[in-house]
């Protein structure tokens, strides 16, 4: 399966990765990165095409990693793993202290 450079740019958009032009400072993902990625993905997918040789007629997909496991529910009750609100707030990349609590700060969305 050939992957074009245009495909790569579209996939990057879908995956929220920067387009090549904006990534010049990112090491391996510099100027020639789209080309290299198109080549890499193309050869990996070509290798993956061997899957087409397998006879999968009548075979069911593996959908659960543990065979025979049914939906697992737990009680709808708070679970405290020992983590505190301070720890979680402390990990915010940017925050705003509103006086009555600390908020996660992000750029306006609309």
């Amino acid at each position, binding site marked *: 399966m050939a*992957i074009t450079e245009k*495909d*790569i740019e579209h*996939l*990057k958009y*879908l*995956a*929220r*990765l*920067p*387009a090549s032009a*904006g*990534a010049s*400072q*990112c*090491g*391996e*993902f510099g100027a020639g990165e789209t080309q290299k*990625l198109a080549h*890499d*993905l193309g*050869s*990996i*997918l070509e*290798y*993956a*095409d*061997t*899957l*087409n*040789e*397998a006879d*999968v007629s009548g*075979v*069911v*997909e*593996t*959908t659960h*990693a*543990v*065979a*025979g*496991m049914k939906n*697992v529910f*737990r009680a709808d009750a708070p*679970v405290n*793993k*020992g*983590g*505190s609100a301070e*720890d*979680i707030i*402390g*990990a*915010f*990349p940017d925050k705003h202290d509103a006086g009555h609590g600390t908020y*996660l700060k*992000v*750029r*306006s969305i609309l």
Partner: protein
Amino acid sequence: MTIGEFHAALKNKKISARETVFSYLNKIKKENKGLNAYLEVFEKEAAEKAEEIDRRVAAGEDPGELWGVPIAVKDNILIRGHIASAASKILGAYVASYDAFVIEKLKKAGAIFLGRTNMDEFAMGSSTENSAYGPAKNPLGHSLVPGGSSGGSAAAVAGGLAMAALGSDTGGSIRQPAAFCGVTGLKPTYGAISRSGLISMASSLDQIGPITQTVGDTEIIFNAISGKDEMDSTSVTWVSDTQAGVGHPSNRLAKVEKIGIPKEYFEAGLDAGIKKNIDAVIEKLSKNYEIREVSLPHTKYALSCYYIIVSAEVSSNMARYDGIRYGERKEGEDLISTYKKSRGEGIGAEVRRRILLGTYVLSHGYYDAYYSRAQRVRSLIGKDFDEAFREVDVLLSPAVPATPFKFGEKKDPLSMYLSDIFTIPANLAGVPALALPPYLQLIAPHFGESRLFELGKVIETFK
């Protein structure tokens, strides 16, 4: 010193936890610069904890098996209050707000954490060359890779910089570095150990497991960290290999009598030296065990199947690293450019390659051709194992196709992926597998870990 030896000495007051921990800390101070096995050492905490253990032993308490045991922890397993970066830039300053289930268990068991170990970024790689903090080296030769992704953990144990270590294994990330560094490593049955607090890579394949000096030590740690956890709905109640409802009734036979040699693992591509070593082990085993050739006909599809499934799961698991709630944020002009900038600067080449591949195979029009087909082939690979284990109790194979390679030797991604060719099938099937010297792998049916320990200990006596 093994865990067993240290425990006996501590119990008989022949050694203190403090002197043991300090001997490791000193060795780390001297040798970690060259080895780069640890990204961070918890010197003060380890020393304090050791003193507490010594006080309790002096006060007459009977020490548990893991009291004072100095353990290295892979950087993708959360320890509350410590950085867990998964050797990435985007989580470079991320401090864990809770303990992983396995950490909670080990803390209660009295183990001491020496530090967090180097790895391939987000556990994607087979050499630690994808670490954002420089690769770890193989103690057997610094020009050689230690394997990956748990390369720092394997190097720490092999180099005597930890008594034992924790790693994680999605397609061989415990067993391949254990084999490369000449130590022992276990990928447990999927569900045997909770994944809570493990930074996710491919959730249907990831398992935490021990890397140790001996099979006995692997067993000790495995017993300490396995079990059902409310925080991981795929973890199961541990009832040794008599697990009801999962696997097969034949699993209840704990004693190993018949060993299967899967012929597909010995075909072209296997290093001649490794094959010779394994043949010698089989020869010795044949005196007391029935050796039978078996076939796992879908083995040739395992690598393709694995990379489709892993990339798909990676692309979805990595979506959470967007620089918003935690991790490194790089502000852009608007929200979407903030996502792109944060991910662009914080996530490395291999991880991005897999995100894009996963995005592709899951996209409309390609889903059936790749992801759905791979999940069907995965069922066939699982069936291969089911059928083999109707005939034999344990499978014996090479763990890796070749001895450790040199840094920079595997330049294209596919050749790097091929070094996991013998370890991947066990992850796809969810069965447990143990790597031990010389470059060996033992595979058992679901929840058949006790068979691996039993046979592994026999093989250790051949040295």
